[in-house]
């Protein structure tokens, strides 16, 4: 049943996500700078950016429609919902039944459709290019992500993210080879979905190679702030999902206050390590051509399918 502590925990999880997400982006940026022997920007740079953007006037293109102005809020809402149902600290989330893992894919899909539509709204060359590429990455990534979810759902006998995490976190030490496959596939998909290096470059200045950046070229002021914030929330959501699914230790099982408090530093530590690794991988890889992306995501899909098959062969009762 929904308890007061559960509601508080839920509100806290959302707030934590809102606060931590820009920090995570800042941390990844800083690590990237270290890896590349540059002077690192301040850790809190994303916050300054958001503050600055919120203060600025919105400069709209003449051709921008009402959809263009609504889209940032919808995208932001989708990402908040995603962060609300992914267990970061505790699995006792009253909002969790609202969307299981399949619906979570749907949430990201909805945000993707809105950002692509918004990109094409003003009717500029780069905007439509970005929108088309984003949808391309989307339809390649979603099947792979679903196969990962299938593998996990079969292990936990549930598609509810909270139940999966609970099952995985509180089991006796059993090695699931299928999880290794699923984990690698999930990493591939997260790179593509979050516009990170092998697929897209978040720091690019070449318009023709952009995906995410090309879509938001026309945004400014509070709209841009919301989209940037939503992008960092997405990175946070994917990181938390990955951590919760493949390294679930330390997530509080229920409304246990002490466990919840203990989960916070652990989460910070895990995110810090994750961000560090992400920056490292981004540094040693080169961005690939857009038409290599199908191969990259095809590999992710194949790994996920292999995970599923291995699960059926090795881990089901013979």
């Amino acid at each position: 049943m929904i308890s007061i502590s559960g509601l508080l925990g839920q509100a806290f999880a959302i707030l934590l996500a809102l606060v931590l997400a820009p920090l995570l982006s800042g941390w990844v940026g800083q690590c990237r700078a270290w890896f590349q022997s540059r002077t690192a920007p301040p850790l809190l740079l994303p916050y300054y950016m958001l503050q600055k953007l919120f203060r600025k006037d919105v400069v709209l293109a003449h051709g921008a429609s009402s959809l263009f102005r609504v889209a940032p809020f919808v995208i932001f809402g989708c990402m908040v919902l995603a962060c609300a149902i992914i267990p970061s600290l505790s699995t006792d989330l009253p909002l969790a039944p609202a969307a299981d893992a399949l619906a979570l894919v749907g949430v990201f899909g909805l945000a993707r459709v809105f950002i692509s539509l918004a990109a094409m709204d003003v009717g500029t060359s780069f905007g439509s290019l970005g929108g088309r590429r984003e949808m391309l990455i989307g339809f390649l990534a979603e099947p792979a992500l679903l196969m990962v979810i299938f593998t996990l759902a079969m292990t936990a006998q549930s598609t509810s993210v909270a139940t999966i995490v609970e099952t995985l976190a509180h089991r006796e030490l059993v090695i699931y080879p299928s999880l290794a496959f699923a984990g690698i596939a999930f990493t591939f998909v997260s790179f593509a979905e979050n516009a990170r290096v092998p697929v897209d470059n978040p720091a690019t200045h070449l318009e023709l190679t952009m995906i995410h950046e090309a879509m938001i070229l026309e945004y400014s002021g509070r709209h841009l702030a919301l989209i940037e914030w939503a992008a960092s929330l997405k990175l946070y959501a994917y990181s938390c999902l990955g951590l919760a699914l493949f390294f679930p230790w330390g997530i509080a099982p229920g409304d246990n206050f002490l466990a919840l408090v203990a989960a916070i530093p652990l989460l910070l530590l895990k995110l810090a390590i994750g961000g560090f690794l992400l920056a490292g991988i981004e540094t040693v890889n080169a961005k690939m051509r857009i038409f290599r992306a199908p191969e990259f995501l095809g590999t992710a899909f194949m790994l996920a399918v292999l995970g599923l098959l291995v699960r059926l062969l090795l881990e089901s009762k013979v």
Partner: protein
Amino acid sequence: MTSLLPIDILLIAACAWLAVGLLGLVAPRNTRFISKTLFPLGAAIGMVAGFVALDSLGGPAQTAVLVIGLPDLPFHLRLDNLSAVFVLLLGFVSVGISIFAAGYFRKGEGTAPGLLCLEYHVFLASMLMVLLADDAYAFMVAWETMALSSFFLVTTDHRHEEIRRAGFLYLLIAHVGAIAILLSFGVMTGGAGDYSFAGMRAQELSPFWASVAFLLALAGFGAKAGLVPLHVWLPEAHPAAPSPVSAMMSGVMLKTAIYGLLRVSFDLLHTTIWWWGVVALTVGLITALFGVLYSTVQNDMKRLLAYSSIENIGLIAVGIGLTLIFHAYRMEGLAALAMTAVLYHCLAHSAFKSLLFLCTGSVLHATKERSLGKLGGLIHRMPWVAWLALAGVIASAGLPPLSGFVSEWLLLQSFLFSPGLPHPWLNMVVPVAAALVVLVAALAGFAMVKFYAIIFLGQMREPGLKDAHDAGTWEKVGLAWLALITLLLGILPSTVISRIDAATRQLLGAGLGDKLHEQGWWMLAPISPERASYEPMIFLVTIAATLLLGRWLVRHLYHGRVRRTAAWDCGYYFQGPRAQDTAEGFSQPIRRIFEPMFRMERHFPTARDAQPYYSVKVEDHFWHWLYLPVANAVGRVSTLIVALQGGRIAVYLMYSFITLLVLLLVARP
């Protein structure tokens, strides 16, 4: 006086539709009377039919005998839960389409409005009779009436040659399908000669004959529904027909074929063999993938939607296949889950696809343009149509919180159980098929973004679009009604499923109904909330709350100032409408990645061209692999027969005489 039974009311509704249609003949040129009186009347009848069907769901089956038709061969009618679900669909969706049609049909070329009104309402009545028929005779009569009336509707603008060709192609394939259905019924009577459905249920067919009947039914109903390879009429007929007719055909008529397939495979045939499911699943997957890939590369907005209908029918067939597989292994609970997905997708698709087709109608009226390459930016001129179309687009892309996602979610949930199948190959291959279903859904998102963004967003590609006007009141009401259905189907899945559960229970003996309401009306948890749950209401409320709260907070803490200026676009100076993606450009990644799936004729510009241009024409492989060889073979056979044609009547009489002689000599007992 005995109270009227639902089936009686539905019969009256069918007669009323016919009467409304006939009234149209009274004043065939009086457009105002026909559009503002008769079509709304038809909509009201549809509303009645819908509510009657909704009310009768869960009740016992009712039968009626209609003494028309041949002597000693009356029409048997029956309203059970399966028919009721589809009558419900027909009734409620036709309300929106009829209201829209009230604003749509105007004076113009082609068929006179009065005749159109007759054809339209005969079409509606015949679909109702298809759903109510309880013997093969009544079914086939209604089925053929439906095919003929829709043929005349498709060829409304019969002065255009390509429209006539599309109509004939449709009629041809409809008849090939009808023959298969007739043969299937013939097999199911088992030689007993009793063509009533009750008689067919009583037959015990051997597995071989049952399989023959099933495959014939799959081919016959598949031809009507648009399953590959019998889909070719669909992308031709839908763009040719007026938009309300396309909406009706795509939204409702395709579902009558699904109804027929369900009726035959789960009601009339008792035995179910597992490989039937595999066949349906495979055909469905191919159809879905084919449909969605072709829909992404279309440049005509109605063709795009027609291919998208093929895709959705494919997904429904996948669901039917899964149901058959589970049913064959007596896993009735899971079969019920898959069946619910099938029925739900029928409902969802008929609402959102009609909505989208009607939107193209409004766009067509406002701009006289069907080609995506000449549209753009219409959200500025047609905000109503644009925002209502967005509901259809999101539902069609299978995204939460609208209706398309619910059925996709249910389908994927039932796929998740397929590893439990007691068959070593199926339990490995079927889960992977789920990935293809997701690929199809994601590609549908691509196609829908293309559809929406090219028509409604961006800069106007033609100067003439500045004069476009928003839809009229009747059209808006019709669109809003269908958008409302899409929304309700999206956010109230438990409520809807508990109503249509009666049909699942009738066909499979098991349903989802018991567990649904334990958790409250807002939660959809078909097995248990720990296993899987989805609460679209909470979903919608959370996003809406974040949206409003975020907006309020931003305005409160900062400001709401807006300035307008030219677009930035990285400072490029040429920002005309031609700098945007064209319809062809948008689908370039698909053409490139899935190149072997298409048959393309491309022209690339070279550096020396005085007037460089790029063009691409995508054709259907099936034309070249299947239809053209068949057509050529028919052509060759007929040139052979031409040799027999002397042209003199004496020669023809001699042929008949020789035939008679040979028959007399050979066919002796």
